[in-house]
């Protein structure tokens, strides 16, 4: 079987050798951020070979519930089946190519119906009916692509209610792709006394005029907060310092202030690097470690898990976990950010928040506050970051220099290692992402 149309022959200039030449041990070529051809190849190859986040099962609790999204540049729909399973379909009518499910979310009942000519599809994507069906008799319709209905994602895996898909039908298994990194999702779910999360609070959507990988790089960049966020977090500390003595520290200041921690703090908190581009900051400490206790939460956890297990769960204070290629998860603050590529210089950042089912509301309140203070289009922290991304998107076009440096604390021995905790300012995790980028960019090119 040849690979499907998701992986056509790349342009001659983007043969595997060309892709590999863009990533050196400690440098990456500017073209991966600014070249539209590289972006097109990412959409065709990288986002088809990797396991990409689609959504959360709590968004589609009942049969026929769906949400629409994109995987890379592909319009997709995630839908709950009558048997309780979840399918991920290309959101494209087999007839004339119209997007079938139009809303961000909804319930489609027992079938999808295209708004153009009323072709209908079962929720598993198979063609159910079309008007004037006898007009297709003796036309060879059964051998046409359209008879196969809405195309399904190559593979779907639901892990503790997080739904991922791989567009290509062939490729690496879910388990091989993620390996030990799933422990961050485990920890976020375990923080619910009932072991269950629900998407809650609504999604913040923030448009960035920069390449999607700048956001991914930033998630484990621990040398920027005290510089870029001096304007926001530093000001928050300064304003609070003027409050009358004895003023209790507001939740907002508690959330802002750790961004201004010194380099030593970030060095010591550590970074853990897994294989395939996954990794996280905050191994032994993090900016989320010192929040005030939430009344009633500890008690609910101890009742559910016992004292010792509770301590294990809540003492895991991981900061940012990158799941390559394009999401970041914060277990202690129950958020998941998706960096959706729109164009080589445009990225939609979606910031989702979760309720820990069975935990006090105050945790969701804190999560929502964190999200609007840090992740929204009105967030001063977000403004700090977006400014530098946009300046990079502009200045990377300079021909004065061609390479971006990711060499901090590089050690050639790292190439043979995985699941390693290292200095928290090591750029190893960025290099890990770039090595994974080469792997999943070229995997389906070489199959040809």
């Amino acid at each position, binding site marked *: 079987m040849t690979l499907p149309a998701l992986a056509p022959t790349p342009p001659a200039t983007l043969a595997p050798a060309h892709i590999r030449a863009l990533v050196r041990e400690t440098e990456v070529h500017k073209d991966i951020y600014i070249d539209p051809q590289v972006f097109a190849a990412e959409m065709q190859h990288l986002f088809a070979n990797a396991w990409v986040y689609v959504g959360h099962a709590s968004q589609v609790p009942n049969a026929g519930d769906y949400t629409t999204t994109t995987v890379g540049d592909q319009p997709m729909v995630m839908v709950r089946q009558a048997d309780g399973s979840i399918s991920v379909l290309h959101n494209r009518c087999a007839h004339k190519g119209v997007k079938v499910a139009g809303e961000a979310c909804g319930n489609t009942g027992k079938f999808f119906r295209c708004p153009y000519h009323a072709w209908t599809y079962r929720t598993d994507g198979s063609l159910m009916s079309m008007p004037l069906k006898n007009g297709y008799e003796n036309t060879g319709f059964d051998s046409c692509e359209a008879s196969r209905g809405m195309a399904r994602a190559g593979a779907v895996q639901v892990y503790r209610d997080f739904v991922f898909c791989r567009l290509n039908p062939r490729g690496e298994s879910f388990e091989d792709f993620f390996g030990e990194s799933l422990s961050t999702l485990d920890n976020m779910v375990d923080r619910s006394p009932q072991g269950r999360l629900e998407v809650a609070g609504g999604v913040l959507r923030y448009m960035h005029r920069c390449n999607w990988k700048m956001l991914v790089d930033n998630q484990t960049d621990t040398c920027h907060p005290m510089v870029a966020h001096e304007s926001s977090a530093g000001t928050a500390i300064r304003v609070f310092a003027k409050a009358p003595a004895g003023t209790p520290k507001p939740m*907002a200041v508690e959330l802002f202030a750790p961004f201004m921690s010194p380099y030593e703090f970030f060095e010591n908190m550590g970074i853990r690097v897994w294989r395939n581009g996954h990794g996280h900051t905050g191994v032994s400490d993090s900016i989320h470690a010192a929040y005030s206790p939430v009344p009633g939460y500890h008690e609910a956890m101890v009742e559910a898990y016992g004292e010792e297990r509770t301590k294990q769960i809540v003492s895991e204070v991981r900061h940012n976990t990158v799941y390559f290629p394009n999401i970041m998860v914060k277990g202690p603050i129950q958020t998941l950010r998706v960096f959706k590529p729109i164009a080589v210089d445009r990225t939609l950042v979606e910031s989702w928040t979760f309720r820990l089912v069975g935990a006090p509301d105050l945790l969701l309140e804190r999560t929502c506050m964190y999200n609007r203070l840090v992740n*929204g289009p009105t967030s001063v922290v977000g403004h700090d970051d977006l400014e530098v991304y946009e300046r990079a998107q502009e200045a990377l076009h300079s021909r004065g220099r061609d390479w971006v440096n990711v060499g901090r604390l590089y050690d050639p021995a790292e190439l043979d290692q995985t699941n390693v905790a290292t200095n928290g300012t090591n750029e190893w995790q960025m290099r890990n992402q770039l090595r994974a980028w080469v792997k999943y960019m070229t995997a389906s090119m070489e199959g040809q």
Partner: protein
Amino acid sequence: MAAPTAQQLIDFVLDEAALLDAQRLDEWLALFTDDARYWMPLTPGQTDPLLQNSLLYEDKMLLQIRIERLAGARTFSQQPRSRCHHLLQQPRIAQIDAAAGTYSLRTAFHYVETRLDEQVLFAGWATHHLVVLEGALRIKLKRVDLVNSDAAFGNISLFM
């Protein structure tokens, strides 16, 4: 002050927008009560500011942080600064309770924010909940409902 007249209420809303456009932000912040909130909901008709995400739900201290940040020497996203322009429809008085000293007005607006060569237009409704405090009108709650509050925006840097 005696119970404010309808014109005084309307003028208050117009003057508030003028302070924002002039970026006289310390004077603007002084219009708020100490327990005030400035709220920009994320979804149309949103009723819960705490367990639902909002674009902004800020107390006076957070507003103060925003204002001080705008002028910071290392606030690179405001170098150069943003500018803004409010175009208000005539404010409509929604509720007067002279006995309780509370008043609310609703004002349709177009708002333009600009930085460098970019100019972005927003449209929505501002709702002011006002009280009389120490003889002057003050804002207890300013709620800004954008007509497309759930859209994907770039930076919103100033105050609507």
